[in-house]
């Protein structure tokens, strides 16, 4: 065991920003706990931190713990030392480390499972003659036994190493958990078999031991993979950030890694690039796409001196300059990433129950195994027979199937949903999803398409609408603004007559104030109605009545046309709402948008309950009211103002273009940018809930039947291993049963190539 470490270095205040976000109510940190493997370890970690830290989340699979502590009251080094003493092996994570570490560990876990499966199969081949009582001549038999030892050694010692380590840790810390009987059974089976190989006689249990390692590894791997996958996707999303920065020093620009940036540096960001750090805008106004942070798809205009955030993209057409104020782990983006990590550390409630049940099992198993051994010795059956009974008890009653029951069903459901375009970020939400009876929708970006479309065109100067649209498209050409997309997209469609053809020159983008340019000899301007430099007729104001955005096209003296830009209903929204209503669900719309716009959408969809101009607070109140009435609520949203709603709902789904912060609070992400996947997701969740119940019933029943048999010596260890394996296989097979014929959702039909075909 390693030396007691000196943890005090982590108390140094200058290190704190790199460890975690510091807020009003304490410092938030995420630690790796390499020593946790079971529900008991989780409880131990919680006990150690309890009272000294708040908001303790332990993630068994990611083996992390997140908590908040007050640096004035408790030292981080003290918490670390106590975690270390409890055998939990804490490690401080540098902010960037978790992803790379997770990938490395996943590879290692995969390699161990692969080796375990190769070894298990080969040992079984070599043990084959003994299964059928075939007695080859003595020399061959000895050779086969030595061959089994050679093949089983890597399968048990290397592939099963984490099991031994976990068992030893549990013993050392004095808390019994499932790893203890597992490690004991493995050590006894392998050790006894190795000794008997040397002695040249006696039954061998190499096959039992290798199979054991294999099944346990598969269960843990499945459990870990589901969450790792979801985490990766979110990380990818929030990881959209610059790796290098252009620093201005003197008159020249130099490219440096963002890690070398210092507060006070001046950096230049080219158009289309992401800002490397939080800072203060210098020199000129700029248009920024902050959709990663806020979900707001419109670029926002920032004036010199205003704060700008890392991760936003320079959406203008000129480079911008900023002075760095926060970098690295201090940036708002980094804080969001940390929130994602914390969101990942939630553990499904059903799973916690199963883990606790498995924990109680353990003590009983150990007692039974010891009793079996003692009874055999008292009966005078000899140490050999006694060992066989103890082994059979340990192996047969290992709660493998029990521990696989929940993760296998959740993993299968998660994988099935991913194929249907729904990414599950919190597997615990699936059982709740099965019970949903009320759905709350946000409007903008959820029921409607985020991109604007030209609704009505009002021509003011006798030009044809097509002509006005062509001029507008020529002016907006090359702009990244979403309003520009509303004009430029129809031009590429076949219906756009001669395909545009107008060429604008002298284009000038005036951030926040539209675009000016010339076509031929005429000067034009296009922009928001409020910014127009010419008088507008009264009917232009009427265009905004239904919640549309009004854009005006002018030449130097008069307004030529007004365009009403509207958000369009998602094509699949009507079908989904109809389907949910058929299932008897209560559907409501809560939007921050104007009353007219919300009413129009509700009318089109046939939804009776809706509310407009709702703040995040108001949405939350409505949700709590519903929950008090006993409803299980699914909330679907995309904007930042939906984040509290999504976090508080029983289950939440977010659209993929939504704000990263919102997605971090959501249990489900609708990857295909389609609502259509929601209804099939409800079916899958209900199926998963049934599978879990069946699996738990089976696993408990099996163990109850098999334990007396093993105790009375009627079960040879190899038979116990086979039974244990069959039981586990049955549980996994049952979990995978999801009515394979039905397609999971429209997303699967639209872009099958884009969906990774899962192996599960």
């Amino acid at each position: 065991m390693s030396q007691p470490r000196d943890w005090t270095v982590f108390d140094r205040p200058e290190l704190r920003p790199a460890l975690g976000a510091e807020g009003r109510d304490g410092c938030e940190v995420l630690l790796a706990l390499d020593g946790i493997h079971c529900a008991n370890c989780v409880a131990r970690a919680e006990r150690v931190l309890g009272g000294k830290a708040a908001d303790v989340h332990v993630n068994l699979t990611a083996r992390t713990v997140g908590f908040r502590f007050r640096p004035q009251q408790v030292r981080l080094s003290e918490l670390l030392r106590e975690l270390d003493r409890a055998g939990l092996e804490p490690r401080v994570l540098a902010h960037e480390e978790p992803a790379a570490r997770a990938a490395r560990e996943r590879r290692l876990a995969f390699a161990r499972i692969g080796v375990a499966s190769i070894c298990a199969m080969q040992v079984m081949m070599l043990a084959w003659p003994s299964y059928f009582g075939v007695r080859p001549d003595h020399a061959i038999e000895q050779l086969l036994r030595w061959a089994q030892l050679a093949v089983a050694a890597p399968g048990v010692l290397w592939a099963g190493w984490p099991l031994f380590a976990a068992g030893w840790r549990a013993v050392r810390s004095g808390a019994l958990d499932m790893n203890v009987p597992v490690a004991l059974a493995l050590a006894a089976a392998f050790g006894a078999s190795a000794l008997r190989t040397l002695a040249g006689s006696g039954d061998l249990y190499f096959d039992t031991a290798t199979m054991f390692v294999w099944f346990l590894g598969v269960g843990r791997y499945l459990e870990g993979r589901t969450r790792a996958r979801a985490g990766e996707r979110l990380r990818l999303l929030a990881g959209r950030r610059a790796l290098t920065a252009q620093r201005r020093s003197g008159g020249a620009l130099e490219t440096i890694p963002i890690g070398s940036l210092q507060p006070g540096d001046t950096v230049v960001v080219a158009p289309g690039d992401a800002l490397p750090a939080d800072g203060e805008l210098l020199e000129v106004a700029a248009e920024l796409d902050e959709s990663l942070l806020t979900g707001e798809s419109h670029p926002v205009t920032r004036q010199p001196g205003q704060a700008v955030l890392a991760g936003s993209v320079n959406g203008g057409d000129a480079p911008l300059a900023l002075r760095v104020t926060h970098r690295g782990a201090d940036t708002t983006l980094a804080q969001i990433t940390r929130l994602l990590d914390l969101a990942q550390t939630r553990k499904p409630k059903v799973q916690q129950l199963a883990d606790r049940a498995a924990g109680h099992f353990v003590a009983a198993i150990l007692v039974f195994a010891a009793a079996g051994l003692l009874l055999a010795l008292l009966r005078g059956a000899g140490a050999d027979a006694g060992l066989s009974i103890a082994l059979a008890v340990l192996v047969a009653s290992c709660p493998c199937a029990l521990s696989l029951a929940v993760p296998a069903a959740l993993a299968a459901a998660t994988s099935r949903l991913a194929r249907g375009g729904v990414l599950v970020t919190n597997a615990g939400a699936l059982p709740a999803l099965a019970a949903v009876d009320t759905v709350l929708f946000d409007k903008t970006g959820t029921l409607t398409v985020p991109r604007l479309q030209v609704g009505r065109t009002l021509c003011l100067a006798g030009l044809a609408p097509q002509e006005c649209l062509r001029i507008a498209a020529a002016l907006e050409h090359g702009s990244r603004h979403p309003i520009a997309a509303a004009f430029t997209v129809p031009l590429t469609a076949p219906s756009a007559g001669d395909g545009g053809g107008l060429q604008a020159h002298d284009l000038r983008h005036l951030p926040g104030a539209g675009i000016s340019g010339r076509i031929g000899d005429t000067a034009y301007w296009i922009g928001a109605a409020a910014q127009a430099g010419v008088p507008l007729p009264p009917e232009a104001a009427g265009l905004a009545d239904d919640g549309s955005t009004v854009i005006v096209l002018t030449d130097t003296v008069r307004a030529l046309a007004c365009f009403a830009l509207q958000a369009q209903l998602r094509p699949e929204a009507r079908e989904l709402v109809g389907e949910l209503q058929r299932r008897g669900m209560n559907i409501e719309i809560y939007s921050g948008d104007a009353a007219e716009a919300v009413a129009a959408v509700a009318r089109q969809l046939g939804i009776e309950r809706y509310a407009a101009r709702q703040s995040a607070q108001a949405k939350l109140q409505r949700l709590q009211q519903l929950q008090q009435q006993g409803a299980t609520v699914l909330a679907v949203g995309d904007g930042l103002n939906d984040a509290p709603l999504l976090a508080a709902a029983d289950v939440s789904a977010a659209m993929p273009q939504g704000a990263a912060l919102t997605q971090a609070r959501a249990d489900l992400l609708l990857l295909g940018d389609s609502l259509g996947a929601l209804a099939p997701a409800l079916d899958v969740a209900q199926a998963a809930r049934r599978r879990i119940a069946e699996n738990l019933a089976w696993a408990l029943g099996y163990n109850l039947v098999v334990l007396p048999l093993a105790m009375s010596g009627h079960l040879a260890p190899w038979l116990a291993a086979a039974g244990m394996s069959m039981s586990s296989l049955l549980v996994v097979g049952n979990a995978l049963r999801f009515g394979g014929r039905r397609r999971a959702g429209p997303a699967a039909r639209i872009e099958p190539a884009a969906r990774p075909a899962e192996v599960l």
Partner: protein
Amino acid sequence: MASLYLLIPLGVGVVLGAIGIFIWATSSGQFDELDQQGGRMPDDEP
């Protein structure tokens, strides 16, 4: 039967070799993303 004296050790050797190759393949990242590997070969073309 005499051939077994050669074949069994040979078999064990093959298994241990397979284990080695598998560990190498895993640690070089070939199992990280099972869907993407099919595209690796065409991508290698100059």
